[in-house]
């Protein structure tokens, strides 16, 4: 039953949805293997180019899969790919938050909440470091990161969009200055 592209997308992506613990970066390898090497939906060169461009688009980096599905088969395939990729994991989270809310007033839930907070904070800070490694910007990236964080601490109400635009502007200026 491998002649139906939609079935194929679901069979390939739905398990990955549940296997993708800890961010989408772990999905790039299976994406490449399945979509390029096994199925030849796009060429290796197209895959790399789409990967680069996908980083410009907003949203999770796993959106690369719907993007490739769109490139190869059109918008309906992209939609099926997105559903296959995000629905299974969302169902798990839904069940978890249902349980979470049901036991709202139990002392143990309070303990879980207080206990998980420092773990979450540690993970967020670790994520900052991981992302800094991925972004190739050198010292300029570190300075920008620190400046934005400092600015937001002083003025928490600042809208994120001008900050993002300023980041792009700084990097473009540095490039123009011949960095």
């Amino acid at each position, binding site marked *: 039953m491998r002649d139906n592209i939609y079935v194929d997308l679901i069979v390939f992506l739905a398990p990955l949805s549940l296997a993708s*613990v800890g961010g989408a970066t772990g999905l790039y390898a299976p994406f490449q293997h399945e979509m390029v090497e096994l199925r030849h939906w796009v060429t290796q060169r197209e895959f790399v180019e789409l990967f680069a461009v996908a980083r410009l688009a907003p949203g*999770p980096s796993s959106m690369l899969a719907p993007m490739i599905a769109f490139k190869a088969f059109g918008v309906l395939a992209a939609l099926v790919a997105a559903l296959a990729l995000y629905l299974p994991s969302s169902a798990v*989270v839904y069940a978890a938050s249902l349980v979470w809310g049901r036991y709202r007033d139990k*002392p143990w839930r309070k303990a879980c909440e*207080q206990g998980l907070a420092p773990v979450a*904070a540690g993970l967020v*800070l670790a994520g900052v470091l991981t992302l800094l490694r991925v972004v190739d910007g050198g010292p300029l990236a570190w300075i920008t990161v620190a400046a934005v964080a400092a600015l937001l601490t002083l003025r928490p109400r600042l809208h*994120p969009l001008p900050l993002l635009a300023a980041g792009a502007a700084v990097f473009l200026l540095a490039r123009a200055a011949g960095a």
Partner: protein
Amino acid sequence: MRQLTGKQHAAVRLVDIYRVFFEIGLLSFGGGLMSWIHREVVERRGWMTREEFLSGVALSQILPGVNSTNVSVFVGQRLRGAVGAAVALTGVLTGPFAGVVFAATIYQWLLGAPGFTSAVAGVAAAAIGMLLRFGIEAGRLAALRGPVAVLVMGVTFVAVGLLRWPMLPVVAVMAPLSVAACWPRGEGRDSPHA
């Protein structure tokens, strides 16, 4: 002033949930999404407490799936149940989906545009700055709980961030320890004081 109680607020309208998450999804460049959701949901609208949000963040990182969509489902579910979760998920994915379709259409041209990669790196750096501020803020609050919380946070950060150990085993060890440290003492199970 319905902030901070997080217990009983008037039902948040679905259209507001969609609007907020649509905007978050559309403008979420570079991966600093968690800080943005926190800003919109906790700081600006007081839809839930910071602690509840952070527990959602932790759950989202442990459970399979993308953190940002997971948190959206969590928030949506907490606000309006199944429909709320579906609306939040749809909202946060609408923009990115349209974005990749659009980007795939024009990508040949984009790659040739001068300064393209610089601009992307700059946007990403700013987004990471947002995430850093959120992390510091979350860390500061967690630290108020005492030395155990600071230790838990520090070990988690060093193990995952610096040593680059796989997240799941680290969390599997740290989360139960941390929760145990906060567990209500004695037999008075019905008196939930910290």
